[in-house]
C-alpha cells in the first residue's frame, strides 16, 4: 500500500498569493495513498528539506510529491533530500504549481483547484514510480574543441595543461581567429599579436594537443563520456610532415591578386598561401579555387596529376627527394573518440554590403571596424599606417559609426553586439596616435562601457585624444569633392550635423558564424533565432548546453569581447576537467527497455532510434537454438526520448521514469 507524502510550498508569497496551500493540503489528505500532507513557507530551505526527510522517516513514506516551483529549479534539491532520508530519489516527484499555476493565473479559487489537480496527477504518478539507480558509463578522457579562436585556444590549453588530450579542430589554415587580425586591444592597448602569438605557438607545440586545421566536424555520435567524432581534413595540397614553412612556394606563385581574407580584402595573397606570417601551423595550403593548375585541370576535366599547367610552387619547393607540394592530395575523414566537446566557433561580421544608407560597401573608404584593425595593424597591408584604401592618402578626418546593424530591428538584429563601443573608442585613439593632426568623430546611440577600466578608457578617448562623440544616427553618406559627406543628427544639441570625412568606419553588427545551425544539428544542441548556440540556463548554467558533455565557449553563444571569451573558455575547460575527474560517469537512468517475451523483432524501434541504441538479441532455447531475435536497448547509448516506446505497436518497450503505467495513472487522475 502506497504511503505518499505531499509537501506544499508557499514560495513566500509567490505561490501562496494565488494558491491556497491549506486547501491543497486538505485535498491532498483525501487522496488515496496519501499518508501525510503539509505546507511550508519555503520547502527548498534547509528546514523545509528537513521536514521532508523527517516525514519520510516518521511516516515510512513510499513516495514524495513536492508541490512547488518548476522541477527545473529544485527537482535535484528535493530528490537529494529524499535520498538522504533513504528514499530512492526517483520516488520523489515535483508538481509545478508556481511557473505553471500561481504565476500565470489570477483567480485564487481556480488556481487552487488547478494546483490540487496537478498534485493529484503527481500523487498518481509517484504511486507507479520505480526505484531507479544511476547508470555508470566509462569516460574517454579526451576532449574535442571546435574552433581555434582565442576562446578555443584558451579551452584547449587549460584542458591540455590539466593533463588531458585535446583534439582541436579549426576550419581555416591557421588557428588564431579574429583576435589574430586585431591591432591593439582595449582597454590596455597592448598589441593583439604580441599576447596571442605565444598562446598559438603553445598550442602548436603542446604534446597533448592534436591540431586539425583546414578541417571541419562532419558527424558526432554517442553521448557524454563516449563521443565518436568524424572530422573532415580538407586537402591542403601540401604535406605538413615534409613542409618546413620556408615560403619559397608563395614567392613564385603567379596568382598574386587574390583578396586576402585575413586582411578583410584590403590586402592580397597568392593561391598557395599561409594566411599570415605568425600562422600556426605555418604551413601553406593551396586554394584550389584560385590555383592555375587546379583550374586548368577542372576546365579540361582531367585529373590534376595529368595537368602540366604552372606548377611553379612544386618546382620552387626545396624539399628533396619528395616535394612537400602534393597536388594529388585528397580530403580525409578521420575518427576521434572523445569524452567531452567544447564548441568555440566564434562570430562573423554582418557584411557592410547590407547597409544602403552607408553605400552598400561600394565606396572603398567606407570600411568596417575589422578592416580598420588591419589598417592600424603593423602586420597589415599598410604596415600600420592609416591610409585611405581608395588613394592611399592619410585621412585627416574619420567618422566612426556605432550600432551599424546592431539594435536595429529593421536589420533583424535587436541585440547589442557588445564590443563596438569599446573598439570604436580604441579606433579613435589608434587613429589619433598615428595621425596627430587628424580628427575622429563618433556617432553613437549610447555608450556601453561596463567592465574593468572600460569607461575610463572611453573617457580617455574623448578627453585626452579629443574624439568628438555625437549622440545620434547617421542618415546618409554621399561623395562630395573627393570627400565623404556624413549627414547625421546630434540629438543632444538637437542640430543636424554634416561632417566632411576622408574615411568612414562602420561598427558592423556581430552575427553567429554562418551554418552554426547545421553544426548545432550535428551536435544536437539547441540554438536561438540568430543561430547563437543556447546555454543550458541563462544564469546558472551559462557554459553547458542541454546536451550532456557539450559546452560552449566564446562568441558562438553570444557577442563577447576577448576577456569574456577567455573567461568562458576557461570555464568550459573546467567543466570538461570536472567530467574527466572520474573514471565513470553517472547517467540518469531514464532509459528504455524491451519486454523480450512480447517483442517479435520487427525492429521498427531500431529504424526510429536517433542514437542507434537498439541492438539485436538472440533468444535461444535450452539446446541453444535461436528461437527468435528481439530488440535490445543499450542503456549506455539510450538518451531516453521514448520515441521507440510510442512506435512499438505491441507496447513491448517502456521508458523508466515515463512508463506507460505512469502516464496512464496521470491521465486517469484528471
Amino acid at each position, binding site marked *: 500500500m502506497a504511503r505518499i507524502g505531499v509537501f506544499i510550498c508557499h514560495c513566500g508569497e509567490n505561490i501562496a498569493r494565488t494558491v491556497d496551500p491549506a486547501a491543497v493540503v486538505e485535498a491532498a489528505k483525501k487522496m488515496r495513498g496519501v499518508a501525510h500532507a503539509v505546507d511550508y513557507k519555503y520547502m527548498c530551505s534547509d528546514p523545509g528539506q528537513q521536514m521532508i526527510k523527517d516525514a519520510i522517516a516518521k511516516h515510512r513514506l513510499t513516495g514524495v510529491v513536492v508541490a512547488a516551483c518548476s522541477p527545473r529549479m529544485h527537482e535535484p534539491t528535493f530528490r537529494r533530500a529524499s535520498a538522504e532520508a533513504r528514499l530512492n530519489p526517483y520516488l520523489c516527484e515535483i508538481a509545478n504549481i508556481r511557473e505553471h499555476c500561481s504565476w*500565470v493565473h489570477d483567480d485564487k479559487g481556480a488556481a487552487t483547484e488547478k494546483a490540487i489537480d496537478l498534485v493529484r496527477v503527481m500523487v498518481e504518478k509517484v504511486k507507479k514510480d520505480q526505484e531507479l539507480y544511476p547508470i555508470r558509463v566509462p569516460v574517454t578522457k579526451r576532449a574535442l574543441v571546435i574552433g581555434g579562436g582565442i576562446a578555443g585556444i584558451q579551452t584547449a590549453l587549460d584542458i591540455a595543461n590539466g593533463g588531458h588530450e585535446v583534439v582541436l579542430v579549426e576550419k581555416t589554415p591557421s588557428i588564431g581567429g579574429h583576435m589574430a587580425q586585431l591591432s591593439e586591444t582595449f582597454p590596455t592597448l597592448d598589441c593583439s599579436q604580441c599576447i596571442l602569438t605565444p598562446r598559438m605557438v603553445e598550442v602548436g607545440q603542446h604534446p597533448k594537443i592534436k591540431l586539425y586545421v583546414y578541417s571541419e566536424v562532419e558527424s558526432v555520435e554517442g553521448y557524454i563520456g563516449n563521443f565518436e567524432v568524424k572530422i573532415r581534413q580538407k586537402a591542403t595540397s601540401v604535406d605538413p610532415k615534409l613542409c618546413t614553412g620556408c615560403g619559397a612556394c608563395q614567392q613564385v606563385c603567379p596568382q598574386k591578386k587574390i583578396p586576402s581574407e585575413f586582411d578583410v580584402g584590403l590586402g592580397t595573397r597568392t593561391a598557395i598561401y599561409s594566411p599570415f606570417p605568425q600562422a600556426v601551423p605555418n604551413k601553406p595550403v593551396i586554394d584550389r579555387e584560385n590555383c592555375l593548375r587546379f583550374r586548368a585541370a577542372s576546365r579540361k576535366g582531367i585529373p590534376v596529376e595529368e595537368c602540366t599547367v604552372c606548377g611553379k610552387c612544386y618546382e620552387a619547393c626545396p624539399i628533396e627527394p619528395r616535394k612537400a607540394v602534393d597536388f594529388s592530395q585528397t580530403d580525409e575523414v578521420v575518427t576521434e573518440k572523445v569524452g567531452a566537446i567544447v564548441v568555440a566557433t566564434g562570430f562573423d561580421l554582418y557584411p557592410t554590403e547590407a547597409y544602403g544608407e552607408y553605400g552598400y560597401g561600394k565606396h572603398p573608404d567606407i570600411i568596417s571596424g575589422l578592416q580598420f584593425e588591419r589598417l592600424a595593424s603593423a602586420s597589415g597591408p599598410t604596415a600600420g599606417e592609416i591610409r585611405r584604401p581608395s588613394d592611399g592618402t592619410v585621412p585627416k578626418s574619420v567618422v566612426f559609426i556605432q550600432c551599424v546593424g546592431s539594435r536595429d530591428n529593421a536589420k533583424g538584429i535587436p541585440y547589442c553586439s557588445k564590443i563596438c563601443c569599446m573598439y570604436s573608442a580604441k579606433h579613435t585613439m589608434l587613429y589619433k596616435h598615428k595621425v596627430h593632426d587628424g580628427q575622429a568623430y563618433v556617432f553613437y546611440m549610447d555608450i556601453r562601457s561596463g567592465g574593468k577600466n572600460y569607461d575610463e578608457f572611453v573617457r580617455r578617448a574623448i578627453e585626452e585624444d579629443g574624439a568628438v562623440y555625437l549622440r545620434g544616427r547617421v542618415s546618409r553618406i554621399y561623395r562630395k569633392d573627393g570627400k565623404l559627406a556624413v549627414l547625421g543628427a546630434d540629438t543632444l544639441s538637437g542640430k543636424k550635423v554634416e561632417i566632411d570625412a576622408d574615411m568612414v568606419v562602420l561598427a558592423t553588427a556581430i552575427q553567429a558564424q554562418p551554418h552554426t545551425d547545421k553544426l548545432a544539428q550535428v551536435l544536437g544542441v539547441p540554438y536561438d533565432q540568430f543561430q547563437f548556440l543556447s546555454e543550458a540556463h541563462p544564469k546558472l548554467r551559462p557554459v553547458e548546453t542541454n546536451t550532456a558533455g557539450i559546452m560552449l565557449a566564446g562568441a558562438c553563444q553570444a557577442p563577447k569581447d576577448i576577456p569574456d571569451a577567455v573567461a568562458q573558455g576557461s570555464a568550459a575547460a573546467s567543466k570538461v576537467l570536472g567530467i574527466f575527474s572520474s573514471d565513470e560517469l553517472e547517467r540518469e537512468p531514464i532509459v528504455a527497455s524491451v519486454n523480450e517475451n512480447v517483442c517479435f523483432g520487427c525492429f521498427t524501434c531500431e529504424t526510429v532510434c536517433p542514437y542507434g541504441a537498439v541492438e539485436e538479441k538472440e533468444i535461444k532455447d535450452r539446446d541453444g537454438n535461436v528461437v527468435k531475435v528481439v530488440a535490445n536497448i543499450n542503456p549506455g547509448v539510450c538518451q531516453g526520448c521514448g520515441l521507440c516506446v510510442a*512506435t512499438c505497436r505491441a507496447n513491448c518497450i517502456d521508458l523508466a521514469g515515463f512508463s506507460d503505467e505512469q502516464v496512464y495513472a496521470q491521465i486517469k487522475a484528471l
Partner: protein
Amino acid sequence: MAEKEWTPKIVAFVCNWCTYAGADLAGTSRLKYDVNIRPIKLPCTGRIDPLFIVKAFEQGADGVLVSGCHPGDCHYTSGNYHARRRWIVFSELLRFLGIHEDRVQFAWVSAAEGAKWADLVNEVVAKVRELGPFTAYRELDSAEVVS
C-alpha cells in the same frame, strides 16, 4: 456528483525540453493565461502515443493540446519529426471519425516562447469553450449495449 457550471477541461501533453520550459518561461515572465489546462510532461513529443489522447477523452477531457520542440530543434534531434508524421495521420483519423479539429491542437512551442504558450493556451481553451463539452464522447458508455 454535484453538477457545477461547465468549464472546459484541456489536457496538454508537452515535451520536457521546449514546451515545458516555454511554459516555465511564461511563468517567470508572469504572463497570464486561461486556467483550464492540465499539462503532463513527457521527454519528447516522440514519446506521446495517440492512445494518450484517446484515454484523455475517455477520461472526460474536452480538448487536448500536444506541443513540443520546433522541427529541427528536437533535443533528441528527430523525435518531433517522427511525431509530426504521427500527428498528421492521427488528426486526419480523428477528423474522419467526426471529432472536431479544434478538440485536438498540435503545436511547436520552444523554450524561448513563453508568450506563444500563453496565447496558445488561451486560443485552445477559447475554441473548446465555443464547441462546448465533449458530451458526444462521454456518452459512449457501457450502459448502451446492455439488453
